[in-house]
Each structure stands twice: as C-alpha cells, then as structure tokens.
C-alpha cells in the first residue's frame, strides 16, 4: 500500500457527514406536520358569529379569562369524528373550557353534526370562509390550540387528539400554565 495522500480522505469525510445528516432525518418529527408559527403570540383578532346564535358576535376577548383549548373542526373531516369522544371527555373531566372554530363549513351541517355527536364546546366560532383558520396558520382539520388566560397561544397539536396525546403532551402544558399563573398571582400579592 502506498503512502496516504491526506486530501483523498476528503470525499470520505464529506460522505460521513452526509450520512449523519440523513440518519438524523429519521429521528425528526413527521414531515407532514408543520410546527406552529404562532406560539407565544396572541390569538389573532377576529369578528365572527356564534354557531348556535347568529346574532351573537364573538371576538378574541371572549377567549380571555382562563386557560382554554380551541379546537378547529369541520363536518367534512373524518378525524374530527375520531377525536370527538376525547374532546367530550376533556370538556367534562379536565376542567378546561373548550372553544370550537367551525372551519370552512356550513352552519346547518355543523349544527346537525353537533346534535348527532354531542356538543362539548362552550361556544363555536363560525369561520365559513377559512380566514380565521389562515390567521391561525391552520392547514387542515382537526387542529387544537392551548391558550392561556391572556389569550396567548401556548401550544398547537395537529391531527386528532386522543387520551394518550392529551396526557403526554397537552396536560403538562396546561399544568405548567396553571403553575405559572399561580406564581404570578402570588408574586403580585407579595410585591
């Protein structure tokens, strides 16, 4: 074997770097899920009617006051049927209010859908042209947001929610927010 010309090792080194890159690619999250751009930003401003009460106008102020979940759903979305039992459970057991955004849908159909599958929502924002969805960076249904008491988005989940996902990913966020708000209140009292 002849003596080694070090510069000829360059291709091998570049290749190893390449392989590491590709290998890492496997550990990355699902390529179809887009992380949210709106984390730590206030819920977008909107003006819309409520699903069951056409004369009532909702704005983002209605979402403030306590930590809550906002679920984007539609009657044309099969996964929304899949996740609905979990939403019902959350609304009854977890002590977090659930608000709905009826996305790119028809009011009559949505009302019938809720009658059929039961209504877990405190109220439902009618987004029949998808504009609120766009402002939220939504690209399909269902998507679920966690908002704090000031109306700032803290977390987003794309896809149907089930018990496992709620317990593993969403509940910790909610508890953290609760802990933070207790801390701020306590600090306020002390200072």
């Amino acid at each position, binding site marked *: 074997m002849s003596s080694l010309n070090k510069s000829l090792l360059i291709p091998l080194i570049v290749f190893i770097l390449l392989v590491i890159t*590709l290998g*890492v690619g*496997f550990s990355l999250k699902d390529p179809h899920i887009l992380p949210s751009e709106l984390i730590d930003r206030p819920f977008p401003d909107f003006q819309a009617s409520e699903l069951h009460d056409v004369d009532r106008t909702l704005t983002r102020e209605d979402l403030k006051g306590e930590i809550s979940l906002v679920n984007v759903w539609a009657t044309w979305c099969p996964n929304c049927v899949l996740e609905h039992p979990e939403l019902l459970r959350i609304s009854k057991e977890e002590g977090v209010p659930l608000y709905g955004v009826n996305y790119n849908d028809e009011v009559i159909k949505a009302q019938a859908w809720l009658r059929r599958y039961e209504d877990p929502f405190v109220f439902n924002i009618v987004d029949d042209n998808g504009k609120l969805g766009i402002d939220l960076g939504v690209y399909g249904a269902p998507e679920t947001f966690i908002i704090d008491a000031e109306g700032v988005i803290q977390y987003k989940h794309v896809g149907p929610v089930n018990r496992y996902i709620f317990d593993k990913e969403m509940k910790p966020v909610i508890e953290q927010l609760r802990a933070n708000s207790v801390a701020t209140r306590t600090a306020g009292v002390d200072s």
Partner: protein
Amino acid sequence: MIAELGHFSLILALGMCVALAIIPTVGIVQKNTQLMNISNSLAAGFFVFVAISFFCLGYAFWSDDFSVQYVALNSNSALPVQYKISAIWGGHEGSFLLWTLVMSGWTFAVGALSGGLTLDMRARVLAVMGALSIGFVLFILLTSNPFDRTLPVYPADGNDLNPLLQDFGLIVHPPMLYMGYVGFAVPFAFAIATLTTGNLDSAWARWSRPWTNAAWGFLTLGITLGSWWAYYELGWGGWWFWDAVENASFMPWLVGTALVHSLAATEKRGVFKSWTVLLAIFAFSLSLLGAFLVRSGVLTSVHAFAVDPERGMYILTYLVLIIGSSLTLYAFKASGVKSDADFEWGSRESMLLVNNLLLVVSAAIVLLGTLYPLVYETLYDGKKISIGPPYFNTLFVPVVMLLFTFMVFSPLSRWKKTPVQEFKKQWVGMVASFFVMLCLVLALAKEFSFVVLLVNTVALWIIVSLGKDLIAKVANKADKVAALFKQTMSYYGMILGHLGIAVSILGVCITVYYSEERDVRMVPGDSVELAGYEFRFNGVSKETGPNYMADRGDVDVIQEGKVLLTLYPEKRFYPASSNVMTEADIEPSLFRDLFVALGEPLGNKAWAVRIHYKPFVRWIWFGGVLIAMGGFITVFDRRYRRVKVAKQEKPNHADGVAGATA
C-alpha cells in the same frame, strides 16, 4: 403457485450473486483461471433467475391474482392490460424488483461482452457487481417482497393503479431511469476493480467508456421522459420542479456527464486518473442516494414511494457499507498515482477540467438545496424551511451558463495545447450568432429581453461552432462524403450531445420567458384570446372510459377566423380509488404547444378553464433525445471493437491504432 415460484427464483438469484461475489474473488487471489472463468456463467445465472422472478410477478398482474398483496394494492380487473404490466413497477416492491432485474441485466451484459478484458479484470468487475447485487436482492427478500400473499382472506378486486400512473409515461420512464441509475454500477465496478489491482493505468478508462456512455444515455432519456410526462400529465404546464426526487435523478446525471468527459481525458492522455475513479464512485453513489431519498420517507415529495423508515435504514446501511468502503479504498489506493502529462491553458485537458469542476459544483448545489431542509430542521429545533425552484434557479443557472459558454470552444480545443488563433477565429461565430438572435428576438418575440438574447446567442454560437468544426474536418478532403464517414462515432456522439444541449437551452429559455397563460370563467359560446389564437368554449359532455367517468370539455382553436382544431380536456373520476384527475389536452407542434385544461364547474354551465401558450417547449425534450442519442452512438465506435480484435490476434500489441483527434 406462480408467485411462490417467483419468490423461490429470487432466492436462487441471491445464491447466484453470492457465488458471483465470492468464487471469482477466490479465483483472483489464488490465480485460478477456472474459478475466474465461472464469473460469466454465474452472471448469466443471476440474470436468468431474476428474469424468471420478474416474469412471475408480471403473470400475477396479468392474471388478476389479487391474493398477492402487491397486485391488490396496485391493480384492478378493469385496468387496461398495458397498465397492468406497467403496474409491476408502480409501487415500491415491484419497482425495486425492476431495479434488480436491470442490475442483473447489466451484470450479464458485462460478462458476455467483455471478451477483450483480461480474465483477471473481468472476474474483478463481475465480482464487484455481484457483491452490489447481494444488497439489492436481500433488500427485496427481507423487507420488500412483492410476492407476499394476503391469504386466507383476499380482496375480490384491487385498489387500482394511481390514475396519475395510468399513462404511457409510466410505462417507459422508470425502466429508462433505472437503466441509467443502475448502469452507473458498471463504471463503478470498473473503478473499484482497478483500485484493487493498485494499478490505475488508462486501460480501465477505455474499457468502461462504452458502458458509461450507454448508462448515461439511458439516464438522459429517463429524465427527459420524466419531464415530458410531468408536463402533460400534471395539468399545469410545468416540466421541472426541483423536487427532491427529480433532483435525485439529476445529480447522478450531472456527475455522470463529468465522468463521461473525464474518461476521455484519462483514456487519451492518462490525466485525471484518480479524479476519474472518484467520479465513477460518485456517480453510482448518487444513484444509491437517489434510491434512498425516494424510498425512505426522509424527504417529502409527491413522487416518493410511501415507505416506512425501517426500509430507509436498510438502504442507508447499505449506502454506508458500499460507499464508505469504496471511498476508503480510494483514499488508500489512489494515493500514489501521479501522471506527468503536461498541458497548457486552453488545451482540451484544461477544458475538460473546467467541465468537470463546474458540473461537480452544480451537482453540489443541487445536493445542498435538496438536503438542507433536513439539516435546518435538526439544527433549529424542528423548524421547517422550504427550498424550491427560486433557490435552484438562482444558483444553478449561472453556473451552467458559464459551462455552456466554455462549451463553445470545446470542439476546437486540442490536446496539450490549442493554438491561440483557434480561439480568435471564434469571434466571427459569436458576432454572427448575436446578430441572428437579435433579429429573431426583435422580429418574433412579444417583448424584448436581454437575458433571452444572451442565452440564445450562446446556444446558437455552440451550434455554429459545431458546424464549423464539422465543415473544417471535411473541407480539404477530396471526397467529402467519405470524410464524413471516416469520423469516429465518438466524434458524432460529441456533436449530437452538444447539439442537444444547445437545442434544450433554446427550448428552456424561450418557454420560460414567452409562455402565456390564462385562467378564465367560460360559459358555452365564450371566447378567449391568447397569443394570436382564439379559444372558443363549447361546453362539457359526459363520457365513460374503461375505468373512469369523465366530464369532457370541447374547445375550438381558431386562427384568422378558421377553426384549426378542437381540444378535449377532461376531468376524470376513477371510482376504484376515488381519485379525480385533470387530463389536459395539448396540441403539440415544433414551435409551440397549445394547452387546455378544465378546472371546476362554477354553476350555470360555467367552467373554469386554463389555457396555455408554450412556445418551443418541445425543444427541451427534443434536445434531451439528441443528447441521449449522442451517448448511445459512441458505444459503436470502432476503436472499442478494434482493440478487442487486436488483443485477440496479438496479445502483446499495445492499445489500438490511434484514432481521430476526437
């Protein structure tokens, strides 16, 4: 039964390629000619068993055997028979069997057609190809078996082939692509075989040139077909999107082009020896990388097979083993190689070096753009970034434009040193091309564009320079026709290849700058004007096809009051897969395409209609075909055959008679 036979045949094929990897190798080490000689038969056996396996899968499709899971997922009883056959390579498992068939075919061909090689060299090359094949066959048997059954309960009918793939394009595009991708295994095997001997003389370059050129020609054809197919099938007039999977085929092509040129220098002048070996390793490595990208799910693409990451891990491991070991072998064995050939600025060698460097830079750009989103996501905590046509066009185009400008001077360059007068003579061609283009652009184009003028001048200048060189070669000869015949196939290959590039450049430039499109709402009787034509919408009727139902539009194309023709765009619904497809109707012609597609019904008999005018778009693919032809005809160069004869008659004779200057 047949499916099981196919499966079994594949296992036998595995045995064959294991034997092919091991037995000749033992023969080489022990200098045992009998063992080395077996390599041919083993290669033939490998091919036969893979072919049987492939044929069995084809039979399963042809006979609508839906108990075979792969057939059930990709076919349907109502599917027209030609698509039942092409459905063999419509999904991951079957297409990889096709890949393996092509590999076994090339292996068999190298064995059968390499009488001129020394026995030792032939055994080495075939052993390498056998070793590569082990990975492919094992992959199929262990992770992607197309013969798996879904007994005892199997579907009464299949899922149907994705309607996008029910098309002539699918029948030819993947086989051509694989012939190219997998064909680069041959120069790779030659390079590795040469490295193992420790002797990087230029003989290996001579042996691998026809194989490399053939594989490169097929890859060119495959990419051209893919672009053409996307254009007429996807319904929005685009023909290249810099999609990850498109890039996966383009990168080996770019490096392959560098390899084709570099081999010439190594063969003729013994220069760039180790660089050419490295290019051969790169080209095939990029083919493997392409296979990985398409099948692992690591990158998002509408082209990609939906495969799980486990299969991706297998391919990645294989990649690491094969390429890692080749590059290590390269680093150690190529270290002592030095050529003492000298050449000047402006010599053919220096031109080829420019060609190589620019092509490798352009391939690196494509690689960077394709993989950067992965890197970004890792480094920046899951944030995603997109890299698309704007990026690639901005960086890639200037590099290749520089390359094209150098291409003008390539036919006139000479080995070792090109007299300066040769370069000076080109001024005439440049000025002439410029003025011709200026007139054409001013006369024919809708609006003047300086970029179009520059780019097209370069393209025309390339053609002029080729023409001048051809004329110069026959100018002083008494019998001009005989002189034309005396030129080698390699020379004509160069002419066709470079001509093809120039033609494609013209097509790309004109179509990018001067295409027109309109999306309009039309009711029956409405007319729209575009590019001097009038398009009259006559309404929509219902039609039925063999496995679809369609809304069929009727659009008259009118010029100067006369109806030239009628176009029938369709919106098809395929019930078996619930897919809706837009089938555009195109009126093709040499200088312009007219393209009509149906959008959505808008109520009250109104429809959204898209109309495209695409000038010179066919030149893109016409150029691609010329390039491929250029690659293919060099295979028939007499010098490659002459050397074999010389070797058989006079074993001590050095390389064959010096041929033409090409």
